[in-house]
């Protein structure tokens, strides 16, 4: 339809040419890239070695503080008061004062510094003291620390999913969680950001009083759909640009930063090019994570294991499903947002109508953590079926493997829900856009639904 195309094009072009869009498109990837790059950058920074003075009146803790690359400890036997006053003069970053207390096991200490002490320092001090106090308490209660050490154990659980055909597949709960969560959150933000843009666009047309001019040329429904689709394309454009820019920035910055990372990356690339390697070592158990990875072969193995897990998640299913819920969810909510925009005169009046559509959306992101714990439970089932919550909840569920019946049901209801929401919104919209002045009630909206078009 030629007219809808014109509307889509206008909605798209006016938004894409806005300064705010251009700024967000550039700023977004910079921020995201910063998330990746800054920690690397900070690690690269050659920090000065900090000298910390220790006055340990108990004599129990001082020997436990070991010098490291960044921290140097000096054990002193002076009056802490005088050191405290001359910290910078004497070249100390901080002073740790552990006084004698009446308790058999002391647990108070004071750290003096000029300004807020560094989190690394406080963290190290706290951890060292905690360990020592624990072992002191253990020996006070007659438990040998060695016994305790032998009791402490790490469990590395290799989960293997068995499908109906009896094929086994390594799976990782953690990774599934992450993939599901990221998918859900992306959909959530996309719906909120661009749904609200649709609503604002409708209100703008109403307050500009241009809407009556336009609906004398096109059907209100065409205007509404053109806007929803146009804004969706703006969102997709921004999304794609963000992904592309972020990848470009991260790779180029990281390649400048460190040769190590470069090497790591090339090994990853190697793996991608050569899937046989992944399969060969795929069956091996995962190495305990806290083991040192000095050996390049070990690094390789760990990477292979991660890739193997990523492979185990059915991306050939998840990616298209992500696109489906991403677009379907947006269209459903976009129509409802458009209806709200048409019913009010300005943004402050939107509150009462926003509530019923933001609640299911917020609910679905809030229950995501429970869905992760029990992706097969009744809560997960129902919320991934109901169209208002299914875009987020189904995304969270999918990486854990969902029965095809559930998926089919969810997709069918999603399409039905989208069609119904569009129909409903269309009926409210065509009356709402021509109503000025008074804020309508739900009762009035109900009447609008039943007017003849």
């Amino acid at each position, binding site marked *: 339809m030629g007219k809808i195309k*014109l509307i889509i094009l206008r909605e798209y072009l006016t938004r894409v040419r806005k300064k705010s869009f251009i700024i967000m498109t550039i700023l977004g990837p910079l921020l995201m890239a910063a998330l990746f790059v800054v920690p690397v950058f900070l690690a690269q920074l050659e920090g000065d070695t900090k000298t910390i003075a220790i006055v340990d009146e108990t004599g129990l803790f001082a020997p436990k503080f070991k010098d490291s690359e960044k921290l140097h400890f000096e054990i002193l036997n002076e009056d802490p008061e005088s050191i405290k006053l001359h910290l910078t003069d004497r070249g100390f970053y901080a002073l740790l004062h552990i006084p004698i207390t009446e308790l058999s096991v002391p647990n108070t200490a004071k750290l003096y510094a000029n300004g807020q002490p560094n989190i690394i320092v406080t963290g190290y001090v706290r951890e060292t003291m905690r360990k020592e106090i624990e072992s002191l308490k253990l020996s006070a209660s007659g438990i040998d620390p060695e016994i305790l050490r032998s009791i402490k154990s790490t469990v590395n659980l290799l989960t293997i999913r068995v499908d109906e055909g009896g094929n086994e597949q390594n799976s990782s709960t953690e990774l599934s969680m992450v993939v599901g969560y990221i998918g859900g959150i992306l959909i959530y933000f996309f719906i909120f950001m661009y749904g609200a843009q649709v609503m604002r666009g409708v209100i703008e047309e109403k307050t500009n009083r241009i809407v009556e*001019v*336009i609906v004398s040329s096109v059907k209100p429904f065409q205007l509404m759909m053109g806007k929803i689709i146009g804004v969706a394309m703006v969102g997709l454009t921004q999304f794609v640009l963000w992904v592309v820019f972020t990848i470009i920035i991260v790779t180029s910055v990281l390649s400048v930063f460190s040769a190590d990372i470069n090497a790591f990356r090339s090994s990853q690339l190697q793996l991608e090019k050569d899937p046989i390697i992944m399969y060969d070592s795929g069956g091996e158990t995962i190495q305990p994570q806290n083991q040192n990875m000095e050996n390049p072969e070990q690094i390789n193995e760990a990477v292979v294991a991660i890739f193997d897990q990523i492979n185990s998640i059915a991306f050939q299913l998840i990616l298209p499903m992500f696109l489906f819920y991403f677009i379907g969810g947006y269209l459903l909510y976009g129509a409802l947002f458009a209806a709200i925009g048409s019913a009010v005169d300005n943004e402050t009046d939107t509150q009462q109508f926003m509530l019923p559509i933001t609640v299911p959306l917020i609910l679905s992101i809030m229950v995501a953590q429970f869905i992760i714990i029990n992706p097969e439970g009744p809560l997960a089932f129902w919320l991934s079926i109901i169209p208002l919550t299914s875009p987020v909840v189904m995304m969270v569920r999918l990486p854990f493997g969902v029965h095809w019946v559930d998926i089919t049901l969810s997709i069918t209801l999603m399409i039905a829900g989208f069609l119904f929401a569009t129909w409903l919104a269309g009926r409210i919209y065509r009356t709402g856009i021509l109503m000025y002045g008074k804020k309508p009630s739900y009762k009035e909206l109900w009447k609008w639904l039943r007017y003849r078009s």
Partner: protein
Amino acid sequence: MQPAIEAQHIIKDFANHRALDDVSLSVPEQQIFGLLGPNGAGKTTLIRIINQITAPDSGEILFNGRALRSDDVSQIGYLPEERGLYKKMKVGEQAMYLAQLKGLSANEAKQRLKSWFEKFDIMNWWNRKVEELSKGMQQKVQFIVTVVHEPKLMIFDEPFSGFDPINVNLLKDHILDLKNNGATIIFSTHNMASVEELCDNIALIHRSKTILQGSVDGLKKQFKPDNFEIVYSNGKSDLRQLLGEQFMVLEESKKEHETIARIHLEPGSDANQLIAKLLPHVNIHAFREILPSMNDIFISQVNKNERSNG
């Protein structure tokens, strides 16, 4: 001649009231038709029905003698009372958009818009944003986009609001031009002076019903109060005594050299009798019938209808 547009027994109900109650009217081709009525009478609802923005609950609109179709929107130009433009968009771009929505191709739209912009001497606004223009300037752009697709039927709802007197005249000339070029125009306004100046026919809607319909000249004759104005001099005797019971002197005002009187003719008498009675006694300078203005007719008819509805 077949009417350009015809409304037949239109009924439209809203939640709490009936906006149009069995409204019928017919707009002759190539004429300017005044759609009049107090605020809230139902004019805008009727206009929206003609524009297919809303649908009637019952009744039918005939366009060139056949039922109105959805693709007729390209034959209709509508300048709503509540009008505006996208503030952040450039004037030319916006005009192109609206013209194309009416079905013009991009080339056609550009060509015609340019000629209209030159006619209004606003070509230098093409690349300016709408928010930089004054209200009157925006109205000009709005007028152009209403007529650029050369519709057969144009509907102007209060077209002169926001214009200064010079531009009101410019616009009137353009509207008359459009009519002479074959367009039929429905013109809704509260400005009765412009109705008299422009309209050939009118319909008066009050309380959701058509209470009056006809040509401007015909209605003026129909509602004339049979009053005459006489300017005379040398009047020695009192007019009231002179004229007797057949003629009622409504008003008399003396100037330095002449007197102006308004006289009402009682039924059964005519203007010639009045002149015959006056001739022997006074020197008549001027004599004319006082016709009601559209404003008078509007007010008297609305009040009458108001009274009969209690």
